[in-house]
């Protein structure tokens, strides 16, 4: 049996409400809240980035797994906001957590699905017998240009998953990936903000990949939507995952626990992974979980998990996603937000 032996997540304490952003750009907050189903989003502190978020999420995963960090043979961090263009984020994480130096480390990038890529490769290496444990992380401090629709959604957070063969809390039963050249969203080298193709990000990109990856996964597993207790899809806004779920035959109840985007925003590479983390926090032995990510460019990774008896032993060993989402919030106004996100030009 191969699967998750420890998981953890991290969200910054700072928040900004849709109203605060809409006010600056003369937009109607009620229209945005209704259209995108977003109410507020997380904002990274001035001293937080993909590396610090990954470290805190991985610390929570290690607390739950209760393993020796030296036994981790690979560390992969998926993000589209790695602080360095050249120097893998994982090099800093392994020294912070006491992993390695006998460890394989790499940074992954695939828009919003870099986190599920990291999980996929970590799982595959353990399944292949190359190592005892491997750590896959999805984290981002995502960028949205001032005044762009993305500014209402681009947020910060991440989740970490330790894959192993012993004391598995969620067995991975099936995986599937679906990828094509679909130019719906991109960021050129040296550009500060990404560009997107507006409505083209919907049907030809998000829905095509999420739905096809999901259908292929259902076919491969010979399972039906009603076989699952929970489902989580990539959450670029509140609306898309609900629509994708409905198209596939999943109910609102199956999506509810992992659907954290209205109050968290889109944590990009951390989106469906943080949703999965929220589900694992409350899952019961025997529950089956359906997860499909999406990364622009474009592609989707799908996983089917089966929760084991051991989940109850580890759920309370670290902070839960919902506790971080609902408590200890510090609200920012738009001026503070612009400063926190480096949107104000300062003298050198």
């Amino acid at each position, binding site marked *: 049996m191969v699967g998750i032996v420890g998981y953890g997540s991290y969200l*910054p304490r700072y928040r900004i409400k849709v109203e605060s952003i809409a006010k600056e750009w003369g937009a109607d907050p009620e229209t945005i809240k209704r259209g995108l189903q977003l109410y507020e989003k997380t904002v990274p502190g001035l001293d937080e980035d993909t590396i610090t978020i990954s470290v805190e999420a991985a610390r929570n995963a290690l607390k739950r797994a209760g393993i020796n960090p030296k036994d981790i043979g690979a560390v992969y961090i998926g993000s589209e906001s790695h602080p360095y263009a050249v120097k893998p984020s994982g090099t800093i994480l392994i*020294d912070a957590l006491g992993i390695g130096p006998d460890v394989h480390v790499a940074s992954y990038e695939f828009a919003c699905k870099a986190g599920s890529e990291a999980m996929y490769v970590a799982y595959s290496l353990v399944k292949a017998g190359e190592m005892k444990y491997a750590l896959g992380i999805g984290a981002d401090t995502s960028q949205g240009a001032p005044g762009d629709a993305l500014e209402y959604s681009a947020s910060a957070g991440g989740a970490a998953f330790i894959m192993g063969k012993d004391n598995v809390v969620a067995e991975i039963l099936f995986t599937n990936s679906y990828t094509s050249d679909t130019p719906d969203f991109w960021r050129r080298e040296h550009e500060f903000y990404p560009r997107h193709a507006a409505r083209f990000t919907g049907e030809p990109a998000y829905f095509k990949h999420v739905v096809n990856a999901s259908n292929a996964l259902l076919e491969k597993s010979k399972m039906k939507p009603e076989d699952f207790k929970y489902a989580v899809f990539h959450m670029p806004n509140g609306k898309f995952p609900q629509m994708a779920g409905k198209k596939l035959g999943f109910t609102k109840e199956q999506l509810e626990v992992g659907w954290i985007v209205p109050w968290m925003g889109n944590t990009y590479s951390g989106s469906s992974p943080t949703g999965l983390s929220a589900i694992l926090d409350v899952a019961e032995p025997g529950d089956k979980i359906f997860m499909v990510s999406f990364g622009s460019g474009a592609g989707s990774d799908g996983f089917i998990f089966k929760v084991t008896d051991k989940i109850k032993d580890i759920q309370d060993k670290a902070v839960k996603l919902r506790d971080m989402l609902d408590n200890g919030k510090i609200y920012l106004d738009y001026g503070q937000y612009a400063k926190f996100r480096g949107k104000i030009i300062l003298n050198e």
Partner: protein
Amino acid sequence: MISPRYHREIPQRYRLEAGKCKGCGYVSFPPRLVCPECGKNDFDLFKLDNEGKLLTYTIIRVGSDKFVGKTPFAVGIVELKDGVKLTTQIADVNLDELKIGQQVKLVFRKIQDEGKSGLHCYGYKAILI
């Protein structure tokens, strides 16, 4: 911070590694070569508990060059459960909520940037618990 010095301090800044004198149990952070209490030079390395309490603090309102744009922020002295006292920034806090004696824990944060093209320097900061 130049790369060699930053690299040398990683065990303390990232992992809170301290030295405990095998002779008298004195804990030094960062580790020393010679115990200031008993003069022995034999230490066990260990990782400090990351929780403690805030002994005192001050608010920085005029930052040095690398902290322009980050003011106001709090810097305090924290006493960890192992008895070690260290100076650290206190993050994620409304400054008017700070009180001496509050329980804190150390978390991993970015401390400073070496300009636009230099290193990002990471280490510990305290947050309230």
